[in-house]
């Protein structure tokens, strides 16, 4: 007996440290991004950073206001959701409730595979197809706009929203649906008033995950939104997101300079935003799992 217990303890002791790597990773990422970004606040106050309306990091004197960047990220993300959420939920309804099982078996893995397409490919497609399309369709001076960014993001997060919503809808207990049908409701009425509300937590979690992916996306938006750090007053103007600012400016920034810290400070903002979104999503998923009988 003694030999067995000793081995069991060793196994646990051997493997536990590996599990803590994830904790360490998150901790270290936060630590490093934070410490590389903090020096910025020796030069300017956090208020200046968060509420200044101008992003001109290399002017004399430099200006590091992130409001235009935050608004840029928000507007393309919101556009992306506006497009992909209705399409995603309705499409999920089709897959889960209306499609015959054979089609679903074919489409579900296809959609999962599509969600793996690299963002640079989306960006390239956006650059060569969407930008001219938007420019010509709307008669704009340039097709590099917030709208174009929103569309390409919508295409990118659509598979995520479709998959997760489909999962949520098809895991609504059958008795809910049967009860509704037994009471005389049509299938659609059931879907609308019973199934979707029941799947709400799961669907919302999927939307939030898509939202997180959209806010964090860099390359695709960089290639289509024009990169002008202006307060977006219309979706037909160019914008600049938090993510693309980091990617575009880091390459030519001197290590350790104020500009360098400012870009890391943007990283902090992004990290915190996605942290909050993720905790909300996880709370929703927990609630959904808790409610199920």
């Amino acid at each position, binding site marked *: 007996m003694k*030999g067995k217990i000793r*081995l*069991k303890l060793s*196994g*646990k002791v051997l*493997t*536990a440290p*590996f*599990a*803590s790597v*994830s*904790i360490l*990773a*998150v901790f*270290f*990422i936060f630590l*490093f*991004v934070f410490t*590389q970004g903090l020096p910025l606040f020796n030069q300017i106050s956090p208020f200046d950073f968060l509420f200044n309306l101008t992003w001109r990091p290399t002017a004399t004197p430099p200006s590091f206001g992130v409001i235009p960047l935050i608004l840029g990220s928000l507007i393309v993300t919101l556009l992306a959701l506006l497009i992909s959420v209705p*399409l*995603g939920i*309705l*499409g999920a309804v*089709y*897959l889960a409730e*209306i499609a015959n099982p054979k089609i679903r078996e074919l*489409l579900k*893995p296809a959609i999962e*595979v*599509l969600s*793996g*397409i*690299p*963002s*640079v*490919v989306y*960006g*390239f*497609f956006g*650059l*060569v197809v969407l930008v001219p399309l938007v420019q010509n369709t709307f008669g704009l001076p340039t097709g590099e706009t917030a709208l174009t960014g929103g569309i390409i993001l919508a295409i990118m997060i659509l598979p995520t929203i*479709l998959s997760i919503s489909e999962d949520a809808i098809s895991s609504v207990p059958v008795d809910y649906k049967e009860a509704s049908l037994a009471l005389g*409701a049509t299938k*659609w*009425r059931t879907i609308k008033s019973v199934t979707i509300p029941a799947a709400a937590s799961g669907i919302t979690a999927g939307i939030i995950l898509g939202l997180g992916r959209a*806010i*964090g996306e*860099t*390359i695709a938006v960089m*290639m289509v939104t024009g990169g002008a750090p202006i307060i977006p007053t219309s979706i037909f103007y160019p914008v600049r997101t938090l*993510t693309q600012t*980091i990617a575009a400016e*880091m390459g030519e920034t001197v*290590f350790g300079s104020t500009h360098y810290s400012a*870009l*890391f400070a943007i990283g902090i903002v*992004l*990290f915190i935003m*996605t942290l909050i979104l*993720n905790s909300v999503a996880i709370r929703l998923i927990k609630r959904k799992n808790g409610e199920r009988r």
Partner: protein
Amino acid sequence: MKAKICQRLGFGAARIAILISLSIMGYLLFYIISNGAGIISWDFLTKPPTSGMTAGGIFPAIIGTLLLVTLAIAISLPLGLVSAIYLVEYSSKESRFMRLVNSAIYNLNGVPSIVFGLFGLAFFVKFLGFGTSLLSASLTLSLMILPTVIVTSVEALKSVPEYFREASLALGATKGQTILKIVLPAAFPGIITGAILGVGRAAGETAPILFTGAVFYMKGLPISLLDPVMALPYHLFVLATEHPNISKVRPIQYGTALVLLILVLLISLTAAVIRYWYRSRRRW
């Protein structure tokens, strides 16, 4: 009657939604494939670029990507698998530590790829002094795919029925032996699927390697871990946003996009096939 009309409209809307979704994604694929197919040739795949990127092939970028993902998975698979073993086999369910680990994995998964790039720059490139190198870039990528590997390994291990373990222990094997000889082999296909998915994700990412290891041109292939490396996604990105001579380089852009697409889709397909084969073959 009204209800029936509502249903028709509703179902119609749902059908249209899925059609729109599929056609957009389908068009994207079709567009890249049709424009890129013409440029793919044996030479394109096996020769390096020449004449300032306007001719030649993308061989070093392909090799670079393969090197990056191989290293990334070589690092994250052992780490992730052992973490998963701890989570499934050893941890007391609902212990504080386990909840912490789970929440860390979940949050790690949500970190934007550019923030991984920033971390890679600050930690691997500068702090540890690895410089812009294959090493820094693969380490960064390995962190990024770690959650994927852990979650799929956990799922794979969990799907091994309890009675496998019970039977083994009843026959006198230790827990360690049970895990190594019974559980892991049974979970193997699921674990491999997870690894392949991680590889697929690492192959397509640009942001994490932007400042940690990717270069647009170097002579020859990386010889040591500390050499920089060319990579397909970065190559496409630079070709699409830097080259002044569009008409000359456009075909190469399409070709690179197609090669990258095929690579990633092949990887996803392999994972899907293994998962399917695994499900149909297992006898429980």
